[in-house]
C-alpha cells in the first residue's frame, strides 16, 4: 500500500508521468486511438473526428478561460478565421492543404491577439461582452466581404490529397485529426511546466499579485489570446479540409457557448478536462437520441415528444453535473482514481 509518491532524483520529480499506472494508461490510450479506426464504422469515425476537432478547440479555449482566466465568447469567430483562412488559401491561392493549416493557425493567432487587446482593461463580464463583439464582428466580415470570402455563400475547398490519395475520407482524416490532437495535448500539457504557463496561472489567480511579481500583464494576456487562438484556428482549419466546404452557419455564437460548456463541464484549467468536456458534449446528444430511438416501441406517441425530451435531458444532465461536481468531469475522474488507489482503506 503506497502512502505517497516520493522522488529521489530531480529527474523523477520533473517527469510528466510519475507512476507506472500512469505510464500504462498512456500506452493504453495511444493504442486505443491507433486501433479504433480499424474497428469502427463510418458513423463512429465521424464522431471520433468531430470529437478530435472539439478536443483541439476546447483545449485552445481552456488555455484562455481555464488557465489565464480571460473569459471568451469569441470561439466561433476564431474558428471561422481558421476555417476561412485555410479554405481560401487552398481554394483561391492554391496553397496545399497541409501548408494552409499552419498558416491558418498563425492568422488566427494574430486575429486572436488583436481582439485580446481589450483584455488589458476589461475583466469578467466586460471582457465577455468584448469577445462577444469579436465573434459578431468576425462573422459580419466573413458574410459581407464578398470579394474575398464569397459572402454568405458556402466556400468550396478542393479535396485534400496526399501523393494522389484523397485524404478527407472519415478513415484517412482520422489520422490527421488525431495526430494533431495528440500533438496539441503534448504541447499544452508541457506548456504549463514552463514559465509562460505559470505566468498565465498567476494572472488567473490574482492579476495584481502577478504584476507585482514582475509578470507583464499585457504581454502575457495577449500571448494567451494568441496561443489559444492558434489552437482554435487549427480546429477551424481542420473542419475546412475535412468537410471541404466552409459555411458561416457552422461558426455562430452558439458554437462559442457550446465550447464554453465543454470546458466548464470537463473542468476549467485542465487539459484533461477539455478532453472530457469535448467528448461528453459531442456524445451526449447522440446517446440521448439513441436512447430515445430504443424507447420508441415502449412508449406510444414518443415521436412527438422525443426531440423535446432530448433537449430537456441535455439541459438536466448538464445542470446535474454542475450541481453535483462544479469542478467538472476531471474532478470526478480524480476521485474515482483516488478511491481505487486507496481501496479498501480510504481515509
Amino acid at each position, binding site marked *: 500500500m503506497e502512502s505517497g509518491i516520493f522522488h529521489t532524483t530531480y529527474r523523477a520529480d520533473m517527469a510528466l508521468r510519475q507512476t507506472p499506472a500512469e505510464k500504462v494508461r498512456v500506452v493504453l490510450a495511444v493504442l486505443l486511438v491507433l486501433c479504433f479506426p480499424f474497428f469502427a464504422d463510418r458513423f463512429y469515425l465521424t464522431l471520433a473526428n468531430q470529437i478530435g476537432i472539439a478536443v483541439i478547440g476546447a483545449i485552445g479555449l481552456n488555455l484562455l478561460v481555464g488557465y489565464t482566466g480571460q473569459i471568451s465568447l469569441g470561439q466561433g469567430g476564431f474558428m471561422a478565421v481558421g476555417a476561412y483562412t485555410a479554405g481560401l488559401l487552398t481554394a483561391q491561392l492554391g496553397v496545399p492543404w497541409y501548408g494552409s493549416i499552419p498558416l491558418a493557425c498563425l492568422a488566427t493567432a494574430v486575429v486572436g491577439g488583436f481582439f485580446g487587446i481589450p483584455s488589458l482593461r476589461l475583466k469578467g463580464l466586460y471582457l465577455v461582452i468584448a469577445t462577444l463583439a469579436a465573434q459578431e464582428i468576425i462573422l459580419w466580415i466573413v458574410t459581407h466581404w464578398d470579394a474575398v470570402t464569397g459572402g454568405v455563400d458556402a466556400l468550396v475547398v478542393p479535396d485534400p490529397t496526399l501523393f494522389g490519395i484523397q485524404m478527407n475520407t472519415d478513415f484517412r482524416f482520422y489520422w490527421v485529426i488525431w495526430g494533431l490532437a495528440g500533438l496539441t495535448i503534448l504541447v499544452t500539457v508541457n506548456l504549463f511546466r514552463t514559465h509562460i504557463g505559470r505566468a498565465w496561472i498567476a494572472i488567473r489567480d490574482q492579476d495584481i499579485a502577478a504584476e507585482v511579481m514582475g509578470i507583464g500583464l499585457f504581454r502575457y494576456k495577449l500571448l494567451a489570446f494568441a496561443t489559444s487562438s492558434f489552437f482554435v484556428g487549427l480546429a477551424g482549419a481542420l473542419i475546412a479540409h475535412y468537410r471541404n466546404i466552409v*459555411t458561416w452557419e457552422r461558426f455562430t455564437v452558439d458554437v462559442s457557448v457550446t465550447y464554453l460548456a465543454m470546458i466548464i463541464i470537463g473542468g476549467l484549467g485542465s487539459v484533461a478536462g477539455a478532453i472530457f468536456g469535448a467528448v461528453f458534449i459531442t456524445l451526449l446528444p447522440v446517446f440521448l437520441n439513441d436512447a430515445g430511438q430504443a424507447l420508441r416501441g415502449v412508449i406510444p406517441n414518443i415521436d412527438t415528444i422525443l426531440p423535446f425530451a432530448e433537449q430537456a435531458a441535455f439541459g438536466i444532465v448538464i445542470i446535474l453535473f454542475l450541481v453535483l461536481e462544479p469542478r467538472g468531469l476531471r474532478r470526478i475522474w480524480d476521485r474515482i482514481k483516488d478511491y481505487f488507489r486507496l481501496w479498501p482503506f480510504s481515509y
Partner: protein
Amino acid sequence: MISIRIKVTAPFCIFVFFSAVLLAMSGCRKGDSGSADGAIKIGALFDLTGPTSDVGAPYAAGLRDFVDWRNAKGGINGRKLALLSGDYGYKVDRAEQLYTQHIQQGVIAFQGWGTGDTEALRAKIRADKIPFMSASYSTNLLDMKEAPYNFLVGTSYSDQAIIAIRWAIDHWKASGKEGTPKVALLHHDSPFGQSPIADAKAFAGANGVAFTSLPMPRGATELVAELGRVKQFGGNYVLIQNVSSPVAVLLKDARRQGLHQSMTFICLNWCAGELLLELAGDATEGLFGAMPFTPPSVPVPGHQELAKWLEKQGSTLTEKGVHYVQGWWTQAVMVAGIERAVESGKTLSGESVRQALETMNNFDTQGVTTPITFSPTSHRGNDSMRLFQVKGGKWQQISDYIKAEP
C-alpha cells in the same frame, strides 16, 4: 501534487471515453444494412427544436406521414418503407452525425432540410451517391457537377423571385400605371436569403425594372429602418425571402406606417404560409404569396389523401398547413423514384434511384405543383407556379401558372 496528476491523466481520459463508445457500439448497434427483402430505408433530417422548427415540424410530419400512408397501402411491391429520422436542431455538426449514422444503417435516399446542412453535406452526398432532396431550393444545388445527387422538388428560389417580378410587371400594367415598377427584395441574411438575388437582379435588369436588395438583420424587433430604405428607393413591389416571424414584424411595421398603401408585399415560399397569418393577423390582409405548393385553403385533388389520412389521426389539413403538403409531396416524389428503380429490376441503390428519378417526366402531383420533370442534365423539378393572396384571413389563388422562362 494534484496538478501534476491532472496533466498525466489526459491520455487516459480518451481511453475511458473511447471504451464507452466501443461498449455503446457493441450494445446499441444492430447489424443494419439495406437488405434485399427488408424494408427500403430512407433517411431524413428534421428540425423540430431549432430556429426553423416552426415550419420544420409540419414539413417533417408530412415526410413521415407519407411513408406511413404508403406502408398502410402495402408499401412498394410488398416491401415496406422505413424512415430513419432524427432531429438535428439546425446544427450542422448534428446533421453530419445523423447523416453518416443513417447511411451506415443502409438508407438509399435522403430527405434533408435547411440550406446550411444541405450545402455542408453536398460533397458527402456526391461521394456516397445518395439522392438527396431538401427544403432548400437554392440554385447552387442545381449545379450538376457539384451536386449531381441533389434534386429540387420545389420551384427554385431564383425562379420564385423571377415569377414574382414577372407577375409584378403585369400587375403594374393591369392597374393602368405607366412604365415599369420598382422592385425591392428583402431577405434573410444567410445563404438561404441571398440565394435568389443574383438571378432576380439579372431578370429585373433585362426587363427594365429597377431593383434593389436589402438584408433583414437577424433577430430584429423592428424593421422600420429597412422599410425606410425601400421607401427612399421608391419600391412599389417588395419581395420577401425570409421565414415567418421576421416577416410578421415587417408587415406590422409597414401597416403602422401606412406603407401597405403604396407598396405591394409578396412573400416567397418560406413566409407564405398559415403561420404568418397567425403571427401577423390583420397586417397580412392583401399580402401576396409566391407559393410553389398549393395551400389547403385552395382545395386540389392532391390534398384529398392527406386530408383523409389526417382525419384518421384526429387532425386536419387546415391545422397542418401548406408546409405539411410540401413535405408529403416531396416524399411522394422520392418514393415514386424508388418505385421506378424497383420496377426497373436493377439492384436498389442510391445510384439506381437517381437514374430512376432522372426518367421522371411530368410526374403529376394532382394540382399541388406543376408536374415534376427530372433528366440526367437537370434536376430542376419545375419552373412555374401560381400566385396567391390573403383574402379574409385565407390564402386564395389569384393567378394561373406563371413560368420563369416563357
